[in-house]
């Protein structure tokens, strides 16, 4: 399969991630959408690396993206728990105060 097919799959995955972020009220869907978008970006990095030369830069970038995604998920879960304790809601649109 050529590069274009991978780019198309990754574009669709990216769009679905945006849909998950924009259309849902639960903040956990926002997290899932972010993971989808990161996966789409990773797929692009690896595909362009595979089809575009001898270096390994794209794959390295994808590895660091995965590492940062793991850190991001941990911190995001901590923030979600804290927001739930403070505001008794996990809707991102309802948690709109910076101080108690």
């Amino acid at each position, binding site marked *: *399969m050529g590069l274009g097919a*991978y780019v198309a799959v990754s574009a669709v995955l990216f769009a679905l991630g945006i849909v998950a972020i924009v259309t849902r*009220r639960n903040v956990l869907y926002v997290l899932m959408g972010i993971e989808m978008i990161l996966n789409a970006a990773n797929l692009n990095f690896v595909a362009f690396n595979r*089809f575009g030369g001898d270096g390994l830069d794209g794959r390295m970038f994808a590895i660091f993206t995965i590492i940062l995604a793991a*850190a991001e998920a941990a911190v995001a879960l901590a923030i979600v728990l804290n927001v739930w304790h403070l505001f008794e809601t996990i809707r991102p649109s309802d948690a709109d105060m910076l101080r108690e």
Partner: protein
Amino acid sequence: MLQRVFYGFIAVFALAALGLGLAVAGSPGLAFGLFAALTIGGALVCVWERSVVRSAFALMATFTGVACFFVLLESEFLAMAQILIYVGAILVLILFGVMLTPPDLNERKLSRVLPGIAIIGACTAWIGMKTAETATWAIAAAPPTGGKVEGFSTAERIGVGFLAADEYVIPFELAAVVLTVALVGAVYIARRRRVDLEAPTERGEV
């Protein structure tokens, strides 16, 4: 519910194994279609489904599909890391989030969000068309090497790249520091406040 989740696991991994077998047997086109169906289908179910738990499990299909794509792109190490970190860790974190927060039963109705979905889809299609028109796919034909060196798997080259002083050793160490800081920070943020712990005794409940 548990039984369905179990069957879902088996179905996803059976599809992935079937696709990988097809790729080895010499029809990567068919394998690509299968993986694309796994990835996009999982994401579609995740967006469509009203229940958070089911969405999280549907996301597992997406992550597995992307891992299969990595195998197809000759990045075995990345595929392994994808399974370990995304399916093994991030999905479990999301499920913990689901279990530790209350269910929100007032999700938006599908009919209310359909226009938004249509707009996003149209924008994606438009940008895709424009890109396909203007892009010069100079590298669209796969080169014989594609980052592969004879006698070395990409996993070996990635490992050497991590440790070689003139390649990626500084980002590698920085990633270790970032992970440590992020995890300590996450524990600090998520810890129970002293007020929460002392509240019952103040009310005389011991």
